[in-house]
């Protein structure tokens, strides 16, 4: 900060002190003013920005301590330095407890005063910068990538806002590609733990021993190749959030270890004996039917209930078709910018194809489809042909009769399954014989 922009207000009933300090700071280039009493100082707080106030502790009327409290009520950002005589060091200590930055005794060592002011301003700048960064982080964090205006997604957003400020364990459920990790990140970003990390652990991608080491870390020499001590995800999530993705994929032993650490927040590194503590919030996600896994005995019931405290179900994209184009445009904008392309819109045919597809891979599939299309396009619009084969709509019914729609749908399902009759029949919830009849009735033929 420029010195001329830095305001120092000297509050002292002694004229000579006010004049001396005012002059001293003015020579340094600061914007300086003085007040002869606490009341005058309070008046000068209105409409002025003071970075530092040097306040004499002993003044007639309202004393320095009371003024300090009033300043704290009005503006917590002002650094208050108390000026005191040797005899009133006790009062100075009281002032420090009341929130004064420091105190100086009369007469003040000029070198000490200069360093004190510099130190106070540096700290003030750091606090300001820290606050600005926190605001930026908050702004960035609250701008979640969860896109959509459908009631289903609005409901998810409401649930996120409700549960985020608490420390409750959350289980996020939904099909693959629906954006479960985005939901976890949004909960973390809106929680008081947002300034600490969110540590993601993909439980589905690890073997039993590797998972244990990843979760709890290992000591040096714990096993072959463990050349260094390594912190685990649980330890790294201290203060923040531990996001356990694909929780349904962990083995029974790790389930037991995980249950223990979630209950006690204590753990031991692999190969170690020290019991360590970590303060973290658990968010987990799964696309599996955990209730069934509990019934089957492949997932511990106690862990299930420990994790399934607050459940958020992320809807599949096909259940919120109104969000498809909003998401598509979001991804189009994102990838056009990233690839420096000028694609800004979709042709009506491409839009039709996007809306007509049922998106089994959900938002992830849509994102990939749009990304690929942006790679392929050279113009301002995404054509239907730019969309990957899977994203092409099954076609339009020839008429408005139920049979017309049925024909299109059966054709689409057969195409999706590669004309696997059993799978298609299962998806359509009809028996195989009925499906054969329909194929014959509609004259459907497999394309070679």
């Amino acid at each position, binding site marked *: 900060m420029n010195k001329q922009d830095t305001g120092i207000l000297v509050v002292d009933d002694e004229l000579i002190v006010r004049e001396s300090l005012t*002059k001293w700071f003015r*020579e*340094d280039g600061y914007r300086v003013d003085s007040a002869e009493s606490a009341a005058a100082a309070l008046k000068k707080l209105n409409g002025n920005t003071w970075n530092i106030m040097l306040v004499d502790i002993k003044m007639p009327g309202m004393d320095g301590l009371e003024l300090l409290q009033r300043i704290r009520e009005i503006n917590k950002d002002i650094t208050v330095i108390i000026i005191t005589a040797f005899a009133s060091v006790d009062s100075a200590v009281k002032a420090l407890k009341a929130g004064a930055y420091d105190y100086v005794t009369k*007469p*003040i*060592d*000029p070198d000490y005063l200069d360093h004190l002011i510099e130190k106070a301003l540096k700290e003030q700048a750091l606090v300001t910068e820290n606050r600005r960064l926190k605001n930026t982080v908050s702004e960035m964090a609250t701008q979640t990538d969860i896109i959509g205006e459908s009631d289903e997604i609005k409901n998810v957003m409401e649930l996120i806002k409700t549960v985020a400020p608490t420390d409750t364990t959350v289980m996020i459920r939904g099909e693959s590609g629906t954006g479960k990790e985005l939901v976890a990140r949004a909960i973390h970003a809106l929680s008081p733990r947002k300034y600490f990390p969110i540590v993601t652990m993909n439980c589905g991608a690890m073997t039993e021993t590797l998972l244990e080491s990843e979760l709890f870390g290992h000591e040096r020499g714990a096993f072959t190749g463990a050349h260094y001590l390594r912190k685990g995800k649980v330890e790294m999530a201290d203060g923040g959030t531990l996001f356990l993705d694909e929780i349904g994929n962990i083995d029974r032993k790790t389930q037991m270890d995980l249950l223990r650490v979630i209950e006690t927040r204590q753990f031991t590194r692999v190969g170690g004996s020290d019991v360590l503590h970590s303060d973290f919030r658990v968010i987990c996600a799964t696309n599996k039917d955990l209730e069934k896994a509990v019934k089957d005995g492949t997932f511990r019931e106690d862990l299930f209930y420990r994790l399934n405290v607050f459940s958020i179900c992320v809807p599949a994209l096909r259940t919120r078709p109104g969000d498809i184009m909003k998401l598509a445009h979001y991804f189009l904008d994102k990838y056009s910018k990233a690839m420096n392309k000028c694609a800004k819109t979709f042709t009506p045919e491409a839009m039709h194809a996007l809306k007509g597809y049922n998106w089994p891979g959900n938002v992830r599939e849509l994102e990939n489809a749009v990304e690929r299309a942006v790679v392929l396009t050279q113009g301002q619009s995404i054509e239907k042909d730019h969309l990957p084969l899977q994203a092409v709509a099954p076609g339009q019914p020839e008429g408005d009769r139920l049979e017309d729609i049925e024909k299109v749908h059966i054709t689409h399902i057969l195409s999706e399954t590669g004309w696997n009759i059993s799978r298609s029949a299962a998806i359509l919830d009809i028996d195989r014989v009925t499906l054969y009849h329909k194929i014959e009735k509609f004259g459907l033929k497999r394309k070679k």
Partner: protein
Amino acid sequence: MKAIRLLRLGTAREDIVESLQEPLEQIFRVPIVLAQSHPDIEEFYDPPRGQYNSTSILLHLKSIEAHLRTAGWRNRGRTKTLAVLDSDLFIPILTYVFGEAELNGDVAVVSYYRLMNELYGLPGNDAVFMQRVRKEALHELGHLYGLFHCEHQECAMHASTYVEDIDLKGDSFCNRCLDVVRRS
């Protein structure tokens, strides 16, 4: 023509004051006039502190200047005065000062009492001492020309509260400060 008066106060050494004349003339490019005065500065002595109140001395010198102007002996703004002392100076709120000046004013004081190595239990060094006196004289005169403390470490207007700080800075103005002086 503007001029700077170097006023030897009290028992300040003549050779020290004289040695300032040439370097200051080179920087300020105005005549540096040597003068001697014997105002009784003892009245500004503070027995409990064992120091002289520089603010009071400054005010006293200002009142003399004002009187001389009233009498037609001085033209306002034409002459700037730097009083040189060998006494320990203070301003009431600070434990000590090397000097004091009126920002953009006419009168400044500088003391070489705390610029001597001997005060800190070190062997005397005339060259270092004289350099410190030049830097501080330049510094206080700089305030009379409206200069604030400068952030450039090499500039004589860099703030120095310890004698070691004085040794670290240069014995001339940085270009920006010099420009302000030359334009005033």
